[in-house]
């Protein structure tokens, strides 16, 4: 039986699973929105770094940076996030949350040029906006008693998000490997060696051992690490082809992020953990609508 992404999009899903995804993602996005990073940016950065571009129009960017507009956007986002979390007025709250997240993360990106939550959650929130994620585990479902949709309506959002999760990692592998002339050069480990040295004093390895994990002038460990990184990131493509290897693929991705965190860059471990909720396999696929009497 075909198990690729396109085939899976049409299969029945679980309203409870989709609702759980909504809750877990909203909880994570809440931690992102209440991060003190925006207020720190306000204090230390006079103007955005010019390394990154954004689709947010310059006028909107200027408006966000003026006065305390970005704080207001964040506050609206937090309120929408709390509503999404409990599932109240979800159909209104989710688009507001998506817009607030999109804008605040654009602001963060322009000043910090850091790639983390926004790579994943702009798409996840867009999909949640378009889906019936509040048909279970929500106040909306309790108060309004909206009839359940066809079971496929609870599956495609989850599968689309899994597809995106895989795309993020396959794209990362593509950026390392292509163009192939650069990819072959990248595989000699120089990039990872620089990373290990550059973040040495930031790394938990240094806090704990007060020394490098191994001699960072050796090249072969970084060659191995580069190859392993490419294999792990490329293996995410399996999520497009089948759901059979969810556990090993996700475990490999988590291990990769734990390794990166040990060498100094935290942040991705929790994103990968939170995204793992997509790969749960609820036994109770949504029941079919009751036949007409």
């Amino acid at each position, binding site marked *: *039986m*075909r198990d690729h992404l*396109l085939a899976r*999009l*049409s299969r*029945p899903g679980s309203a409870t699973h989709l609702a759980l995804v909504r809750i877990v993602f909203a909880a994570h996005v809440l931690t992102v929105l209440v991060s003190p*990073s925006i*207020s720190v940016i306000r*204090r*230390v*950065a006079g103007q955005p*770094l010019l390394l*990154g*571009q954004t*689709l947010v129009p310059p006028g909107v960017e200027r408006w966000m940076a003026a006065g305390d507009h970005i704080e207001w956007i964040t506050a609206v986002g937090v309120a929408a996030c709390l509503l999404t979390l409990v599932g109240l007025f979800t159909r209104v709250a989710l688009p507001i949350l998506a817009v607030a997240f999109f804008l605040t*993360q*654009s602001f963060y990106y322009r*000043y910090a040029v*850091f*790639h983390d939550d926004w*790579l994943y959650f*702009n798409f996840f929130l867009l*999909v949640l906006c*378009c889906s019936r994620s509040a048909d279970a585990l929500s106040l909306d479902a309790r108060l309004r008693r909206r009839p359940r949709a*066809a*079971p*496929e*309506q609870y599956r*495609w959002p989850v599968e689309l998000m899994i*597809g995106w999760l895989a*795309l*993020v990692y396959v*794209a*990362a592998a*593509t*950026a390392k490997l292509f163009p192939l*002339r*650069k990819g072959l050069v990248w595989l000699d480990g*120089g*990039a990872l060696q620089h*990373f290990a*040295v550059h*973040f*040495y004093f930031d*790394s*938990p390895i*240094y*806090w704990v*051992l007060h020394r*490098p994990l191994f*001699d960072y*002038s050796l090249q072969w460990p970084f060659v191995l690490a580069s190859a392993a*990184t490419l294999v792990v990131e490329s293996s995410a493509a399996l999520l497009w082809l089948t759901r059979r290897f*969810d556990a090993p693929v996700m475990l490999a991705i988590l291990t990769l992020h734990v390794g990166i965190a040990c060498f100094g860059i*935290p*942040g991705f471990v929790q994103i990968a953990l939170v995204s793992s909720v997509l790969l749960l*396999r609820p*036994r*109770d696929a949504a029941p*079919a609508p009751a036949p007409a009497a």
Partner: protein
Amino acid sequence: MPPTTSERGHGDTYSLRTGACGSSDADSAARARPWRTLEENDHDDGAVVPRWLVWLRRLAIALLVVDALDLTTSAIPALIDQPRAVPPRSPAALLVQLVLLLPLVALLPSALRAAWRRFAALPIPVVARALVAGFVLLELAHVALRAEIYPFSPIAMFSNALPPRRGPTAAARALRLPGDPEPFGLLRAGSELGSRGFDLDYKAAWVLRLYEGSPTIDPVVREQLGGGHARLERFTFRTADGRIVAASPIR
């Protein structure tokens, strides 16, 4: 009349224990059902194609896609290629690669037709389908061209072509806190494990690290750690055992 997509899948479940998605009786259901899937229709040409030939065709297409990606990813000069010179592409290689695009271009119309049929049959509401497809296509374009315009990214972190380091020592920047002989990495400040009283998360710590060359971070660091002025220094350490052999102030 074929059933709608919502009518098709009612018997399906997906199991936590077995990990199998879809119904256990899906194959028998497929045999019994009076309609055909789009995939079955796609291959409905009356001929039986050997399995190895199917795989050979897939492999060939994959290689052509690799060729196309190699060309598109080098179409726009990227910062990540700059630190290290990569071997140039010879005109002959470029010509061969461009010629190899032709079969892919020839396959494109039929592939697009098949993709459109599948896309139109998805059980996703039209507006959602258009929004999601637009977002994904734009992301794919950014990946193919290695262009980054928020919220689209080629996810090129740590993809720089950098030369390997040689020699027994290396240098990295860190703060030196008043009265503390040890270097203090700002990302350590943002970690739950090594926070030393910092009330910041890793995202805020990253911002501080990025702007650590600027005196504007001083009030924030002082506020978080107390005490006097933290100095930004460049520490040279032995890569074998981590012993710091030199330190010089940056500002």
